[in-house]
């Protein structure tokens, strides 16, 4: 412990150098912007800025890139809450209750909770990263395709919790999402599925165009289609801060989100996205008022927003401790290190203590900067809501289109977003929820790949899912959840039968 503190002190002596501070700040600012812009997420942001880091030192480069990564998680909540556009994929869940809070005039509170939750999660998870990285990294690597499949299956169960409305409609939308996720190259055989000769469809429908279309564009269309224009919300300064009640309801979700996000984040793959889904489901399950979810439950913002921040630090565990490119973003960051002649590997912490501890210390500093940057911004951002809709909506559409285009520089993606926007509008008119589509489309390719990789590993033996301890445990948890639900459903089923005659009677009156 004393040794860790000593190393950390050394790290701070690196992190507090003016140049390192400056690059951490630049990273945090760019990250916030990248997060705020719809569509452009941390991966696109880091990729775009990677060449600009070639001229810096290795420490400055990685401090700045990491700043973009966790900064984006702070910024991502902003547009989700204010306009129902996910700033990046991990903020999809925030769109649901965050936007509902904004509709009730609690936008400022939602933004503040998101920023503070992100800060607590960011700082807590850096501590975990610092203390637990080496032992946890080896555990993380034990997550192979079967374990990933089991985890994703749990994620799929989340879909069932998504809707407060009709379960059938919600499941239908989830299936539609899963089907959309089938588009693209079959990773196992090289077949192009449903691409109709469009090379760009080979990669499938991206998460970003689907989410921006179904949430952002559909929301604009739906509101514009109302006969009576909605009232422009005028947030008052007093209402910017969360109430005592909201604080109380957020504390536990932030704590749980932090732990959950970190644990899921260390798993190789794009686990940080799933972390927010799982956190949402857990909060809804544990909440005393699950019916509030979807209608502005503050826990539905606090949990996922903390989880996605905490997951970023988690993702650095295998990267720093083992030099393993555990996901797309760590892979780019490792490339940034290689360009500077630092060979990332299991010896990184030993050979480059300045870099490792400087990096850790800079994350403490960076999280403070982000809090200082984001809290005052809450007051500015909520003013977006004052803009008359005739000006706001065209600008939202423009930002959506630009953001979606910027991710891959692909016009096909813009078309996908627009088509999804129209689809989302129609579905909303018919009373369907669109969130399960997004989750289905995100999960489908991951589940499919993990399932088929597992079967390739075992030469077609399904036993692989139960014979491996982690996968088996996760599947057992999933099965238990389903059973519990079945029981409560059956109990409610009896109630329902009893209720029916009363209701009919009531209607006849």
């Amino acid at each position, binding site marked *: 412990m004393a040794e860790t503190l000593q190393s950390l002190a050394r790290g701070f002596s690196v992190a507090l150098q003016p140049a390192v501070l400056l690059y951490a700040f630049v990273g945090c600012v760019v990250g916030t912007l990248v997060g705020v812009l719809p569509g452009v997420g941390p991966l696109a942001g880091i*990729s*775009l800025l*990677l*060449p600009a880091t*070639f001229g810096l030192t290795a420490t400055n480069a990685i401090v700045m890139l990491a700043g973009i990564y966790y900064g984006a998680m702070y910024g991502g909540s902003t547009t989700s809450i204010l306009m129902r556009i996910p700033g990046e994929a991990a903020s999809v869940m925030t769109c649901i209750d965050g936007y509902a809070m904004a509709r009730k005039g609690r936008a400022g509170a939602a933004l503040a909770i998101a920023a503070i939750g992100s800060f607590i999660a960011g700082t807590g998870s850096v501590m975990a990263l610092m203390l637990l990285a080496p032992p946890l990294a080896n555990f993380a*690597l*034990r*997550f*192979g*395709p079967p374990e990933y499949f089991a985890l994703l299956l749990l994620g799929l169960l989340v879909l069932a919790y998504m809707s407060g409305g009709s379960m059938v409609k919600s499941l239908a939308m989830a299936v539609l999402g899963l089907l959309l996720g089938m588009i693209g*190259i079959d*990773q*196992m*055989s*090289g*077949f*192009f599925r449903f691409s109709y*000769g469009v*090379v*760009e469809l*080979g*990669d499938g429908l991206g998460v970003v165009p689907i989410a921006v279309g179904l949430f952002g564009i559909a929301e604009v269309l739906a509101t514009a289609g109302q006969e009576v224009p909605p009232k422009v919300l005028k947030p008052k300064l007093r209402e910017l801060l969360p109430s005592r009640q909201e604080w109380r309801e957020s504390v536990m979700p932030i704590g749980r989100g932090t732990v959950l996000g970190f644990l899921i984040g260390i798993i*190789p*793959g794009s686990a940080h996205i799933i972390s927010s889904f799982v956190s949402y489901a857990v909060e809804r399950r544990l909440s005393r008022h699950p019916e509030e979810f979807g209608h502005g439950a503050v826990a539905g913002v606090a949990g996922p927003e903390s989880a996605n921040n905490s997951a970023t630090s988690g993702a650095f565990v*295998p990267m720093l401790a*083992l*030099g*393993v*490119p*555990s*996901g*797309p973003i760590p*892979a*780019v960051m*490792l*490339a*940034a290190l*290689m*360009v*500077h*002649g630092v*060979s*990332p*590997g*299991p*010896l990184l912490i030993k050979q480059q203590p300045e870099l490792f501890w400087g990096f850790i210390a800079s994350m403490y500093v960076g999280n403070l900067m982000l809090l200082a940057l984001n809290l005052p911004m809450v007051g500015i951002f909520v003013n977006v809501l004052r803009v008359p809709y005739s000006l706001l909506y065209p600008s939202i559409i423009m930002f959506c289109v630009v953001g979606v285009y910027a991710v*891959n*520089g*692909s016009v096909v993606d813009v078309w996908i977003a627009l088509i999804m926007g129209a689809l989302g509008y129609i579905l909303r008119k018919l009373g369907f929820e669109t969130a399960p589509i997004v989750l289905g489309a995100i999960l489908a390719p991951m589940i499919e*790949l993990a399932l088929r*990789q597992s079967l*390739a*590993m075992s*030469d*077609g033996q399904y036993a692989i899912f139960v014979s491996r301890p982690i996968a088996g445990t996760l599947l057992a948890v999933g099965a238990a959840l389903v059973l519990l639900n079945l029981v409560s459903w059956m109990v409610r089923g009896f109630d329902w039968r009893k209720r029916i005659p009363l209701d009919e009677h009531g209607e006849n009156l």
Partner: protein
Amino acid sequence: MTRLRLLLAFLALAAFIVLAAGYPAVAQEPYPSRPISLVVPFPPGGVADLTARPVAVAMEKVLKQPVGVVNKTGAAGAVGIQSVATSKPDGYTLLLALSSISIIPEADKLFGRPPAFTVDQFAPVALISADPTILVVRAESSWKTAKDFIEDAKKRPNQISYSSSGIYGTLHMAMELLSHAAGIKLRHVPYAGGGPALTALLGGHVDALASGPSVVLPQIKAGKLRALAGWGDKRVAALPEVPTFKELGYPEAEFYIWAGLFAPKGTPEPVLAKLREAARVAVADPEFKSAMDKLETPITFKQGAEFQKFFDADAHRLAEGVRKVGRVEQK
């Protein structure tokens, strides 16, 4: 109506004048007189991107025009490569491609798809690097040599598994060429990219991996992985004790992850000559050399007929490989 026609006629005339005035200027301008874009069909941070950036910087010095790297990603590189294949052959749009340029059209052919592009749509300019893949296993595995590995694989067909960067991807092809040369059958588990494939090997989810040396060197040095043999013509400089499959009696197991510079077919010969010259000077640039050193990727420079020969032989080998794998049907 007449007014509309008049307007159209006027517009056509205006367009003609602009074109007529512009055309001779284009024909006379010495190459290069404006910025050049170097298309990389993969995202930033990958091998292609990390090679392209120092190449662009070094060529800028020679050509005295900015050379910008454009990452045009999608469909395992097909999107970016296709965009260069159909761009104007004027030397202002270049491509930095990896070995996969020869594999994609072959895979398209296999599935009876109209190919996104074909190899003969490109004029090779220069080869920048050609790294042989090496066979790595976990340090605690029982195979100490490539011979152990191959003999064990013969005893237990389809029991030893390996990860790859994706079906028909470079790392898959390397392993297939070996399997064919040695008469063994291995179990293939494709991953979405080289990073996840390496993670899977380190995590013990597969038994072996063919990988570019630079990526696995730190893991070998740290004692996590062991290199058994290389696919190269010569041994890898950083691993002098690791034999090649050629030495071990499998000359057909030859495979390189290479990076080369291409222009669209039809680019005028003087422009190509200038590009070749620029590439030759660029690879000798000390800054370029140090950048490639840091990536632990040795420079292998070939141009003109020499590169064409290498390219043709490699494309032939890979096409053969793809055909041998055939269509992976549900097993």
